[in-house]
């Protein structure tokens, strides 16, 4: 039986210009930043206790927060040096205030002793989950939910499938592609750890069919190591925004509204998460760095291995600076990324890309009801309705039109002839609705 399965394609969406400028550039090590800003409430889950004080010396990988709650993960210092502040800063992806810790690097990057786990065969699932939690591994694809929580589904739900997401659906972004090519062995080993914990029947690796080289090299590695994994090529298109659409595309199961992947017996993880899990178990290394694609109108676009908390300006400078006037700096890809106004905005565990792009004005004309947004929406929503409702403050009607399940992939705004920033209206509606929920 062949490892590579039949190609699958999306049942919606569009083909985007790929612009994967650095798909062939090897991962480089980004220089250590002088100062890192680490968010303390990065992952969802219970609030953690701060373990250090201002003025304390910390080592690379030393825990700075932890809690007794199993559902949250500890956060680690990403450089060695001195804690120079525990303050608030603007969250680069939501614009809200968040608690952060700043550490000024001593430039030595001294780490504590790493405690790798013994051989995998001799390690129990509980020990693995504990080690993954201890390393602070969170989902690297935008949700930042703790990896070990996903790997410990409720007792009543049997997980029979793991999908490793290497699809990488946004233009420009190549970080997962490079991770699969260069860290393939670690990714597969991380996947194998997940498999041991969950013992599913099937393990699929979903890869966009534009990444032939990654598919080939992973296939070779799977054969060599004798893993029981299957590769599912997916016709490149946009969007494959979240778990639900990926599950539908790969195994044709439908997650109901309000449901989760575990309901249909599936766990989805990202390739970078698998890599981090491998490092957590076999190297005892905490999750303090990831691969980030720095691309767009910078002099030398690169794929960089970056410590969390590095200011975005460092990466842009390292890549030779911005070459065009009137550019935006976007953390994330071109479709879902957020424009930054602050050059000091830090890189987080879910940052796969820093895109510098010449800003385009948005026209926001009147909707002509052409229905193109409805045709492309991966969640089968009617995006055209939201701007109309929001403009008149009719937020309840947004809720009745299922605005909450919108994944903000942006494909509706991409095809909109009137150039309406539909996603922004969706965000306004969601925010207004959650505010009202809070008031009640």
């Amino acid at each position: 039986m062949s490892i590579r399965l039949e190609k699958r394609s999306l049942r919606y969406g569009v083909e985007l210009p790929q612009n994967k400028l650095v798909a062939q550039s090897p991962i480089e090590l980004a220089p250590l930043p002088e100062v890192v800003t680490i968010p303390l409430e990065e992952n969802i889950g219970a609030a953690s206790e701060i373990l250090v004080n201002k003025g304390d010396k910390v080592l690379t990988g030393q825990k700075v927060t932890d809690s007794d709650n199993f559902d949250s993960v500890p956060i680690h210092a990403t450089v060695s040096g001195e804690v120079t502040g525990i303050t608030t800063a603007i969250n680069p992806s939501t614009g809200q205030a968040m608690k952060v810790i700043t550490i000024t690097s001593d430039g030595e990057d001294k780490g504590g002793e790493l405690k790798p786990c013994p051989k995998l065969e001799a390690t129990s699932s509980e020990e693995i989950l504990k080690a993954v939690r201890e390393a602070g591994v969170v989902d690297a694809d935008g949700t930042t939910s703790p990896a070990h929580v996903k790997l410990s589904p409720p007792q009543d739900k049997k997980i029979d499938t793991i999908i490793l997401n290497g699809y990488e659906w946004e233009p420009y972004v190549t970080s997962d592609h490079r991770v699969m090519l260069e860290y393939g062995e670690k990714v597969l080993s991380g996947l194998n750890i997940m498999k041991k914990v969950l013992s599913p029947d099937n393990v699929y690796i979903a890869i966009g069919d534009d990444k032939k080289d990654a598919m080939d090299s992973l296939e070779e590695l799977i054969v060599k190591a004798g893993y029981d994994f299957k590769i599912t090529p997916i016709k490149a298109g946009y969007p494959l925004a979240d778990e639900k659409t990926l599950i539908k595309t790969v195994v044709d199961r439908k997650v109901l509204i309000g449901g989760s992947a575990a309901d249909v017996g599936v766990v989805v993880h990202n390739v970078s998460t698998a890599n981090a899990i491998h490092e957590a178990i076999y190297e005892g290394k905490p999750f303090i760095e990831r691969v980030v694609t720095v691309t767009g109108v910078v002099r030398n676009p690169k794929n960089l291995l970056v410590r969390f908390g590095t200011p975005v300006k460092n990466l842009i400078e390292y890549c030779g600076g911005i070459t065009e006037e009137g550019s935006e700096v976007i953390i994330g890809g071109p479709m879902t990324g957020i424009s930054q106004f602050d050059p000091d905005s830090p890189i987080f565990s879910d940052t796969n890309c820093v895109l510098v792009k010449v800003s385009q004005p948005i026209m926001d004309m009147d909707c002509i009801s052409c229905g193109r947004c409805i045709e492309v929406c991966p969640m089968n929503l009617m995006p055209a309705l939201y701007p109309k409702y929001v403009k008149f403050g009719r937020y309840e009607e947004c809720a009745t039109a299922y605005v909450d399940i919108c994944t903000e992939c942006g494909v509706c705004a991409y095809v909109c002839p009137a150039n309406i920033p539909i996603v922004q209206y969706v965000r306004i509606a969601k925010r207004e609705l959650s505010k009202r929920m809070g008031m009640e």
Partner: protein
Amino acid sequence: MMPDMEFKVSPSPHLWGGRSISKIMYLTLLALLLPTAAGIYFFGYRALLVILVSVSFAVATEVLVKKLRGRPFIMDGSAVITGLLLALVLPPTIPLWMVAIGSIFSIAIVKEAFGGLGHNIFNPVLGGRAFLTACFSVEMTTWIKPMGFATEAIVATTPLDEGFVWSWRLAARLALYKDMFLGNTAGTIGTTLALLILIAGVILLAFKIIDWRVPLAYVGTVGVLSLVMGADPILQMLAGGLMLGAFFMATDPVTTPITHRGRIIFAIGCGVVTIIIRRFGGMPEGVYYAILFMNAITPLIDRYVKVRPFGFQKVVKSAT
């Protein structure tokens, strides 16, 4: 470090397909040039004059009304399309001042009074035509034989005037079909040559400007119903404004439903009303009123015909 670093910001997505309203309009206009050229070929300078008057008054009205409303005028081509389409559904002999009135009414009342492009309930072209038919019924139903650039006009009847009947004289039928398909029958400026309208429609379909469901469901409904009701389906499908209406008016995004299912309901409704008017109504042609009528029903269709979101389940509704 970088003191002069100042970033622009904008909401995601940061990419845009670039298929703008004006691009869609100009592509539609390009396709419309085919029936326009045919109209001028068959009805000569007179047709050209009607077209010029209609288009220029439409654009001028749009500029003026936008100014009165204090809104910016955007040359997106929509006013040109309205003017051109209106000319195409007028008889070539109509006095030019009537054309101007129709054009002004289309833009000022049917389109801009409702809020401009995107807000109008009725198709401006059809609103203008209905207004002209109500005001000048004689001029609006006087037809001439296609005479090209000759000056002599011969009054004639349109194929639809023969009524809602079925004829068994096959040879005569075939000659009539050929005339209608290749354009040698009396009628409005833009509708005499079904073949070119079909080609223009295929262009629109190829560029994915219109939804194929609408013309298919509309023309199909007309064909099936005429067959069932004992009329000549091929004549009914080729005659009058059906082809132009099905490809260029029933597909107007603004005044038709937004969902696929809604559009199919809309198109079938158009077909049914067209046949009812042609069979039982006081006038031979029903396409334009049928579409106008369905325009009025569009908000109702959009209210009840929705798409179901991914993972929809009935339980969700009862839970809330």
